[in-house]
């Protein structure tokens, strides 16, 4: 931006700024297209992850590998075969996550129901629900300067309490769901509080304590499930009784589609976290402590108290993630009911750059990958484990913007400076 300076000796109103001084929107767009700003790096991280995933697909497919044996004799075969398998896999990933054009055509002509058209979106939202909760949990802790690896354990404890209240208490419709959700909040908050209080009182690093608490929760779950009174009497495997209908999160779009009230609660939670972070005193202290604990202490804030509060709220959010698993989809506890949402929540928070609405988008994106991965597995025969690989790669590239910048020879950004997540010791 240049500032027009008035010529010497001229007084009065300065001459109008030349219009060329301010670059047009298009110009600014082009200028920033190849710089290392967050949007470009995020997009390129997706591209890199998809490319790496494509390599894995090609390498693991025996038929395609066979065409590489005579690569130099007829390279077109190898390229064609690779393209076919990769494009088909990613197309199925998309169709399973967003919409399948054929289903739309079928619905228009009356060959299938409209529910089939909305099935992918419903699945995406269903998978996204717990991820948004756990992502918010981890993101909030990040902003408070804590790394909550323990979302998994908080999900488990929250899920346990939600389930037990769900099948044990005879409560009327409406009240029961609220009580079960509160129980989950309480359980998650309690489990998070242990790590927070230990950090505040003894300085024990939250990464270590939350890792340990994850496994303690997991073993507690595997023990609890097979106890009389919890285990489903009609089953021999490790599964608990089903929660009452009154405590289930109601479906939003009819019984055929799985999407449930949880997604709305998740978005509300994101709004709540956004308000808490940006508009409340607690949030201000939280961010201050996260940004610079020494300065915050000098300013008179209670560091230990803030750490405890952060972990309690963070745990409560993760507990809701557990509730959405048991009250929204599974309706019963199994040893693996959490579906790793606590760990995936970490990647969601990183992808969402620890911002509430970023977490919602990231959660939706990872939910979409999960939903699409199911279709990819059944239609293209490519294991859903690929989704985990893609998620991990995306987050690695996002966490290391300097690497993406080096690979693509991006210019340094002028808008929106990028930084790696804060590095701290134990």
């Amino acid at each position, binding site marked *: 931006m240049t500032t027009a300076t008035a010529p010497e000796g001229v007084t009065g109103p300065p001459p109008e700024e030349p219009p060329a001084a301010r670059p047009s929107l298009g110009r600014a767009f082009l200028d920033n297209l190849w710089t290392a700003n967050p949007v470009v790096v995020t997009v390129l991280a997706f591209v890199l992850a998809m490319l790496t995933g494509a390599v*894995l697909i090609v390498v*693991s*497919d*025996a038929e395609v590998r066979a065409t590489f044996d005579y690569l130099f004799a007829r390279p077109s075969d190898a390229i064609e075969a690779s393209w076919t398998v990769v494009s088909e896999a990613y197309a199925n990933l998309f169709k399973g996550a967003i919409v399948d054009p054929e289903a739309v055509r079928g619905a228009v002509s009356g060959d299938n129901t409209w529910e089939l058209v909305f099935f992918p979106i419903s699945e995406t939202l269903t998978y996204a629900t717990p991820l948004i909760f756990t992502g918010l949990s981890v993101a909030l802790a990040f902003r408070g*300067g804590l*790394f909550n*690896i323990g979302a998994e354990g908080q999900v488990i404890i929250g899920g346990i309490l939600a389930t037990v209240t769900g099948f044990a208490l005879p409560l009327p419709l409406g009240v029961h769901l609220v009580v079960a959700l509160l129980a989950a909040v309480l359980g998650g908050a309690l489990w998070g509080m242990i790590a927070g209080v*230990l*950090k*505040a009182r*003894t*300085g*024990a*690093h939250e*990464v*270590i*304590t939350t*890792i*340990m*608490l994850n*496994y*303690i929760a*997991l*073993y*507690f779950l595997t*023990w609890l499930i097979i106890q009389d009174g919890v285990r489903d009497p009609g089953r021999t495997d490790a599964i608990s009784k089903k929660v009452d209908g009154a405590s289930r999160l109601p479906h939003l779009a009819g019984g055929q589609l799985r999407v449930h009230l949880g997604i709305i609660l998740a978005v509300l939670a994101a709004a709540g976290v956004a308000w808490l972070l940006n508009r409340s005193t607690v949030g201000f202290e939280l961010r201050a402590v996260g*940004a*610079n*604990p*020494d300065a915050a202490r000098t300013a008179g804030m209670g*560091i*230990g108290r803030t750490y405890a509060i952060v972990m309690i709220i963070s745990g409560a959010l993760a507990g809701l993630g557990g509730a959405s698993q048991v009250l929204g989809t599974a309706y019963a506890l199994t040893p693996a009911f959490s579906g790793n949402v606590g*760990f995936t929540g*970490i*990647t969601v928070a*990183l992808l969402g750059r620890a911002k509430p609405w970023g977490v919602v988008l990231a959660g939706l994106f990872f939910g979409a990958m999960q939903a699409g991965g199911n279709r990819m597995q059944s239609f293209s025969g*490519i*294991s859903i*484990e*690929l*989704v*985990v*690989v*893609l*998620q*991990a*790669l995306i*987050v*690695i590239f996002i*966490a*290391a913007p*300097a*690497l993406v910048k080096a690979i693509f020879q991006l210019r340094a950004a002028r808008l929106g400076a990028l930084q*790696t*997540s*804060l*590095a*701290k*010791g*134990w």
Partner: protein
Amino acid sequence: MTVTTLPAAAPVTTGFWTRTRRLGATFAGLGLLAAVLFGALAKPGVDARFLLTEDIQGATVTMPGRPAAIVFGLLCAGAGGALLAGVADRWFGWLLGTALVAVVLSFLCWQVSAAQPGLNFMPVVDIMRGSFLAALPLILGALAGVLCERSGVINVAIEGHFLVGAFAGALVGTLAASVWAGLLAAAFAGLLLALVLAVLAIRYLVDQVVLGVVLNLLALGVTGFLYEEVMKTDQDSYNNPPPFPVWEIPLLSDLPVLGPALFRANFFLYLALVLVVVVHIGLFYTRWGLRVRAVGEHPTAADTVGVRVRLVRYRNVLLAGVVSGIGGAAFTLGSTVTFNKNMTAGKGFIALAALIFGRWNPTGALLAALLFGFADKLAGYLQNVGSVIPSEFLAMLPYLATLFAVAGLVGRVRAPAADGKPYVKG
């Protein structure tokens, strides 16, 4: 880069309550509790037999259950009392060992005497061998952690190293029909993953805990994907590695109890024990070790006197990758025979716990790993004799112990000062 410290929160144990006294008080209380509780619960008039040889007719140590449980409990209380009184600081290690062993024996006397009729004996040799086998990957993983973290790079990715090592060991071991090729491949796979960790942590300054978590996810995804796509279709030709033969050391293997457990083992156990000694001597008695520790505690000072901080870190992280890759191979080439998805099931995190519980010290890590291995094996034994103690609670033990250790309830553990902080020159 912010450095969080909690000077106000960390209690300085000066005055009367030194670490020794706290430990003494803990064990005195524990011993008394054991004497009362285990003594009361032990079945009166039933002997607890400890079988010292491999065949069931061999030598046994037989003790009356109830009196023995009480005596051992009191012994533990006595040792704890001596520590508490502060009369025997010189024999700290011995007293601590005595207290620990006595409380475990008290517990065992109760458990063995209260076992189902006919099962009132404990095969000590079998338990010991099983403990060593269970501890094996933990020892190697914790050693890798020592190498990494002593140089100032946090390694949360031990689990991921285990997985890639186990996978590569199984795949290449099967393809080449050679355990040594498998071992080499496992070491190489560990090295590759460590290279990613090293480059991103040291060159691109990514938060090391975040990185570790994501690398675990990546390793889980990649090995899971390749397992589903390549191995599962043809288990015989891709996932059927030959096991390492058992090497018996003459003479030593004839030692009572310890001989069959320790000197009739496969390559991995010998390697692990040798490595503990090598790393311990290397770290504390050589120039290399001094430099590593200097880099881990105060990189700026090390740099000032001409130590190349980044080089030392790269070297150690890569070395750690090789060690933990081999630790992963122990899963497939050592004990179990075929690779399975997520077969390490959290063992990498127990190795991390052993590292922390062993105070970032090779010998401490070995002892912690053995303790955790023993807990693992004991859980299986107690389940077999129909104990009232749920095996899940014993499985929690490593995590609980670590939780107490970092919280400073039983002494304090402290990580290397610069652990997890990237070094930027200038």
